[in-house]
């Protein structure tokens, strides 16, 4: 017989919660968002066989780390909702509380709150190896008796204690008998009135409801109940900040006594970890060496995402080209074949190509997070970035954005404040990513003379550098602007723990990477494939007989005659829906110096900016996708403006185009990822509009100035 149980893991940040979760579930886990918010919801499952022969199927939810049940940030809302609201879909049968044994006092604070909820709970005291090493003994029997719940010593890294925990989970534990502290003493009338009004397990749940009446989802379907309770609160003049403070102080008072009883420091040795941490911090947080080392680390990350990722990306690219050829040859010619090869396979290729960068970036980020270094980065960078509405941790997304905005935006999750995370996500795509490079390279070689100053400094190189700088300035400027526009959903705190340095847990890092890739493929990937198909339809089909005619000519043309082939391909693109749209938007983009040919490229390169080069080669009949940039360049150089008869690609148009590509949100993959990370289409659309307007205005101004 199989019995099902729901278990929640809850604990302070840095208590080893994720390690325990990974231990219990292995790879049987998935990440989604909690309904309505972009807070990661990690769920997993495991099976426990009991001695009586029946199997237990356990669904585990890993709740975001929190110090108390009082929600102050978006993330802390979740443990509160899940544990205090019995109607919540994740409300557990058993709550497993993970405590950091080296900081038992603070860990017991959250634990004591959960005990008072009066539902089955187990306390796991983690990091026992360090506790023992520092010469401290914990009387677990006493602790368990005082708390009224089972207590299990553990070392989650090595898996010590896991089996005891599994047995405890299925042992049908009873609810704690006594209140740890009776919160009814603080507001007897309120607690009693609420308990009369709604059926509840404990005084503490009533007290929590009183404190968080506006936040708790419990009454979302019963607004009249909520109003009724608010009326009670008003009647008794209930002040929740006084109440919470009294509760906190009372809890710590009782906990202090308890800790004195159960903790025995036999021969207290100053913890090695702390001494080591202090020494390392003297170097890593040094006012000069600290920044120097951080810069070096950033440089390595940048190299990895930019250069090391290049060869696996090349392999992915080749694999998809190979597959396209195979599929193309295996299926009879026709629309279905084209859709499969040029729409779906191309789209899938466009998704898979990001995986090397995501894997590399998250390997680094996970290591930096897991060792405790990221908290230091935050600490060192806070003052610089705060004035731009960003967070110390925004550095990683911004720098990674120079390689690619997609993994960069995924990495913004480590920013705890929603507003700072959002601003980071919104401005990161302004950093010049590697997909802009081919566009810049083509345009610079077209309009910037190959001058050398002092024999070594090339003008073309300077312009490229200027474009990167412009991207960075635009990102910071926009952040500053958004700081005043974006409304904060919560108050921003910087108060956080700086954990001791620890060796990275490679398994955790492995899981993080697998999760990130999975999320990207399944959540952003489907949008990318869908848009890729739409773009394929636009550029491969067109209305009327003229399009059909060119298409059939192209199909029957002599494959050896590349000139005719290229000419027909260009004609086909001109007559396609993309071509028609390109011509339709010509009046809009004309003030920027763009013609309809550029218009087509603007539309097709929404798939990815570098597609600009490929589209230009098709339009200028260079043909093929492995076109020679030099040939496109020659053709574009020779291009004359229809009206003026002067070269179309002069300095003004070149700069106008470059600025347009620097600022416009020409990337469907980024938009798909922003949607996933912000939970709706609202922000990617605002971002699209904002970047579009910025691009249009800057291109317009530079074009006017230069022409």
């Amino acid at each position, binding site marked *: 017989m199989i019995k099902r149980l729901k278990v929640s893991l809850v604990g302070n940040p840095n208590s080893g919660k994720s390690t325990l979760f990974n231990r219990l579930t292995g790879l049987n886990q998935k990440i989604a968002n909690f309904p309505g918010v972009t807070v990661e919801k990690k769920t997993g499952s495991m099976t426990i066989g009991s001695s009586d022969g029946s199997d237990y199927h356990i669904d585990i939810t890993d709740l975001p780390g929190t110090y108390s049940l009082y929600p*102050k940030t978006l993330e802390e809302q979740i443990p509160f909702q899940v544990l205090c609201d019995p109607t919540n879909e994740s409300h557990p049968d058993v709550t497993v509380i993970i405590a950091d044994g*080296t900081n038992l006092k603070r860990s017991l604070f959250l634990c004591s709150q959960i005990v008072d909820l009066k539902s089955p709970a187990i306390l796991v005291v983690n990091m026992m190896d360090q506790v023992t090493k520092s010469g401290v003994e914990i009387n677990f029997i006493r602790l368990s008796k005082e708390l009224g719940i089972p207590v299990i010593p553990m070392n989650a890294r090595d898996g010590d204690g896991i089996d005891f925990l599994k047995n405890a989970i299925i042992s049908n534990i009873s609810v704690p008998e006594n209140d740890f502290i009776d919160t009814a003493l603080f507001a007897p009338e309120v607690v009693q009135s609420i308990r009369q009004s709604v059926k509840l397990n404990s005084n503490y749940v009533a007290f929590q409801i009183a404190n968080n009446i506006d936040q708790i989802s419990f009454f979302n379907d019963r607004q009249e109940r909520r109003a009724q309770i608010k009326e009670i609160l008003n009647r008794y003049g209930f002040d929740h900040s006084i109440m919470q*403070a009294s509760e906190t102080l009372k809890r*710590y008072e009782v906990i202090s006594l308890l800790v004195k009883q159960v903790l025995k420091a036999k021969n207290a040795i100053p913890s090695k970890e702390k001494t080591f941490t202090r020494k390392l911090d003297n170097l890593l947080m040094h006012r000069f060496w600290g920044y120097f080392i951080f810069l070096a680390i950033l440089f390595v990350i940048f190299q990895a995402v930019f250069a090391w990722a290049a060869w696996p990306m090349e392999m992915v690219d080749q694999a998809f080209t190979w597959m396209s050829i195979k599929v193309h040859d295996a299926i009879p010619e026709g629309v279905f074949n084209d859709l499969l090869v040029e729409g779906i396979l191309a789209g899938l290729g466009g998704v898979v190509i990001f995986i090397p960068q995501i894997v590399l970036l998250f390997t680094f980020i996970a290591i930096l997070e897991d060792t405790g270094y990221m908290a230091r980065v935050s*600490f060192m960078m806070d*003052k*610089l970035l705060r004035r731009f509405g960003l967070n110390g941790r925004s550095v990683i997304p911004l720098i990674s954005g120079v390689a690619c905005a997609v993994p960069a935006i995924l990495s913004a999750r480590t920013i705890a404040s929603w507003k700072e995370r959002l601003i980071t996500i919104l401005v990161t795509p302004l950093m010049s990513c590697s997909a802009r490079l081919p566009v810049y390279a083509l345009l610079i070689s077209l309009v910037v003379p190959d001058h050398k100053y002092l024999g070594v400094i090339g003008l073309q190189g300077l312009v490229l550098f200027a474009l990167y700088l412009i991207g960075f300035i635009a990102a910071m400027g926009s952040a500053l602007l958004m700081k005043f526009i974006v409304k904060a959903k919560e108050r921003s705190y910087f*108060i956080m*723990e700086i954990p001791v340095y620890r060796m990275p847990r490679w398994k955790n890092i492995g899981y993080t990477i697998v999760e990130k890739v999975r999320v990207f493929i399944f959540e952003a990937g489907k949008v990318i494939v869908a848009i890729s198909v739409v773009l394929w339809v636009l550029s491969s089909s067109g209305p009327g007989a003229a399009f059909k005619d060119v298409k059939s000519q192209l199909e029957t043309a002599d494959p050896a005659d590349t000139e005719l082939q290229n000419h027909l391909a260009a004609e086909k693109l001109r007559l396609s829906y993309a071509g028609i749209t390109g011509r339709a938007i010509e009046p809009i983009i004309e003030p920027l110096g763009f013609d309809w040919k550029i218009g087509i490229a603007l539309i097709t390169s929404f798939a990815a900016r570098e597609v600009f080069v490929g589209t230009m080669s098709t339009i200028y009949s260079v043909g093929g996708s492995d076109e020679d940039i030099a040939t496109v360049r020659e053709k574009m150089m020779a291009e004359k403006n229809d009206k003026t008869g002067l070269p179309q690609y002069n300095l003004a148009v070149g700069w106008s185009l470059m600025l347009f590509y620097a600022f416009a949100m020409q990337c469907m993959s980024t938009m798909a990822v922003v949607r996933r990370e912000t939970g709706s289409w609202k922000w990617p659309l605002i971002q699209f509009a904002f970047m579009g307007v910025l691009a249009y205005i800057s291109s317009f101004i530079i074009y006017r100035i230069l022409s």
Partner: protein
Amino acid sequence: MRGDFKKLSEIKLGESAVIESFTDDTMKLKLLEMGCLPGEVVTVTRFAPFGDPMAIAVADSMLSLRMSEAANVLVSVRS
């Protein structure tokens, strides 16, 4: 004997003080739950290179907070 009352943000590097009270209610709750209780000894262990934020050692852990946040914590220095 109780010494002078000061803001936590005024404490110098390496000095210790005792937490007395808080002047901001929300901040108070956040700090309380992280173990910054009245009566606990705090030691200023580090300042970020630009003088802000600060790192403090309190009750077995190291916390970081901005100077503006630390200005809401009143401490007493025992002479």
